[in-house]
């Protein structure tokens, strides 16, 4: 049973182009999508590839123009499912400032549970648990304004966690953060997935954020063009680059060496893998002609 199931999902929206002419833009052009409950899924794509539009479908902020999308068995197109879907699938957005509503951290985290009518005592428990889960307990009485970007995003995540969702969709949560903030947020996301068993859907264009994913989808031009484990996806460096994406430096080096005739395995993602591979290759006596 898949938590998210999409069949030929299409989304069109009306837009004005550079010449101020009305036109229809096909942001999502027929997507089939299956996500298992408890998985960590990454959706990669350059800006304008349709990944954010897809994300907004996952908690019924948008409805497919045609095709069907089921989240937790509920059709997102049906109005009566809207709030049930949002209760079960939370969403974190890119700009940390623009998604914080309250003036105190703990009240921010309580906002979601308050909306769904959780009794006061239970809210307290959930808020404390959620703040623990993202490691922000020490800041519960602080104003969100003086926090760093990474901390603000963790608060936003806690606000979703407190709603006890089965799934959390993060739409480029690290795009506006510095490396420290990115690290904080990624660690938080991973621990949510591993410890709280929340299904995670991470939308990003940073390749190094997808290394820990169970499943990677690459989007281009409104379609899913590649999918598989990180290893599988990163095996095809040329193709990834053609979609305007990067690969980690070690992956690129391995790929370049392969092009030079090195019998090196595909999809190297980490420093240790490259080290192991090249060391074994050197010790096995593999050499190349000096002229190269």
């Amino acid at each position, binding site marked *: 049973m898949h938590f998210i199931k999409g069949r030929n999902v299409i989304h069109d929206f009306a837009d004005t182009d550079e010449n101020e002419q009305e036109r229809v833009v096909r942001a999502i052009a027929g997507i089939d999508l299956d996500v298992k409950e408890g998985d960590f899924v990454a959706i990669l794509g350059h800006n304008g590839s349709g990944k954010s539009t897809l994300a907004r479908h996952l908690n019924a902020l948008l409805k497919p123009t045609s095709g069907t999308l089921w989240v937790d068995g509920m059709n997102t197109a049906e109005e009566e499912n809207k709030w049930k879907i949002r209760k079960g699938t939370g969403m974190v957005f890119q700009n940390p400032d623009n998604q914080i509503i309250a003036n105190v951290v703990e009240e921010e985290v309580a906002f979601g549970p308050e909306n769904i009518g959780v009794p006061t005592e239970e809210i307290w428990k959930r808020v404390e648990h959620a703040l623990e889960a993202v490691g922000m307990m020490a800041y519960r*009485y602080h104003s969100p304004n003086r926090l760093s970007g990474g901390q603000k995003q963790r608060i936003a995540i806690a606000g979703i966690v407190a709603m006890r969702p089965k799934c959390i969709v993060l739409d480029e949560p690290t795009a506006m953060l510095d490396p420290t903030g990115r690290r904080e947020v990624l660690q938080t996301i991973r621990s949510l997935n591993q410890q709280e068993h929340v299904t995670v859907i991470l939308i990003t264009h940073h390749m190094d954020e997808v290394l820990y994913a169970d499943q990677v989808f690459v989007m281009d031009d409104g379609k899913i063009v590649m999918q598989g484990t990180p290893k599988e996806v990163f095996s095809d460096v040329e193709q990834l680059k053609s979609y305007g994406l990067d690969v980690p430096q070690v992956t690129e080096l391995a790929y370049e060496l392969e092009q030079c005739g090195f019998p090196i395995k595909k999809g190297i993602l980490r420093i240790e893998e490259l080290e192991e591979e090249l060391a074994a290759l050197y010790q096995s006596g593999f050499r190349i002609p000096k002229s190269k």
Partner: protein
Amino acid sequence: MKNITIGQYYPTDSVIHRLDPRVKLFGTIVFLVSLFLTDHYLGYAVITVCLAAVLKLSKVPFKMLLKGLRGILILLLFSVVFNIFLVPGRELVHIWFLSITAEGIRRAIFLGIRLVYLVIGTSLMTLTTTPTDLADGLEKALRPLNKLHIPVHDITMMMSIALRFIPILMEETDKIMMAQKARGADFETGGLLKRAKALIPLFVPLFVSAIRRAIDLANAMETRCYQGGEGRTKMHPLCYQKRDKRTYCIYAGYLIAIFGINRILVAFQILPFLFA
């Protein structure tokens, strides 16, 4: 803008901080009423003692309130001077065509006291109440207005969102201003028209950004199942404690005292003697 203390919160723990926001709202109203009922020195002496006591209990540094007064300094000076010279009555000093009267001085002093106390009183409320509490208090206190189809919850929600975004937009204004200055924009010189025009490069981006933020926020609220005030629970529901009830009793006593002093003074006609 930085001198305005109304709307700022001073985080500490005090008896006043712990009071129910409704109690503080009501207290502020009581205080304002007492200010405008009083018309003689003895009454103001009582008010001063009470205000000083509340200030002491609130643990808010007096310096902070003084800073808040800077914002109304011009208004204060203007109205005091206006009263000194323009109130007709028994003339004390005559300078050229202006005359200072005893009534004028009295009126000016009272007006000054009222203005200063008004700012201190309302600042004290906001300094001791978090914006969220204040919004909650207002929402609950004004709930009867719902029957008149006034969307009290929506209004207080907007209020608390506005409070959250004011510092963000202020910072953004600074940033945009600097960026346009780096492109040679000049916000400081020129006539009124030129200065007004110079603000376009500041206001357009600020406006665009505010709208973008509003859309983002609306999305964020929707994904977190916000559907208005209906069916919402609260992490910090407001319910009166013993201390709140006691405070209401103190208000009653305070009002009676102010009224009483007024009546007694008038009854004994001390007023004319004081200024004979």
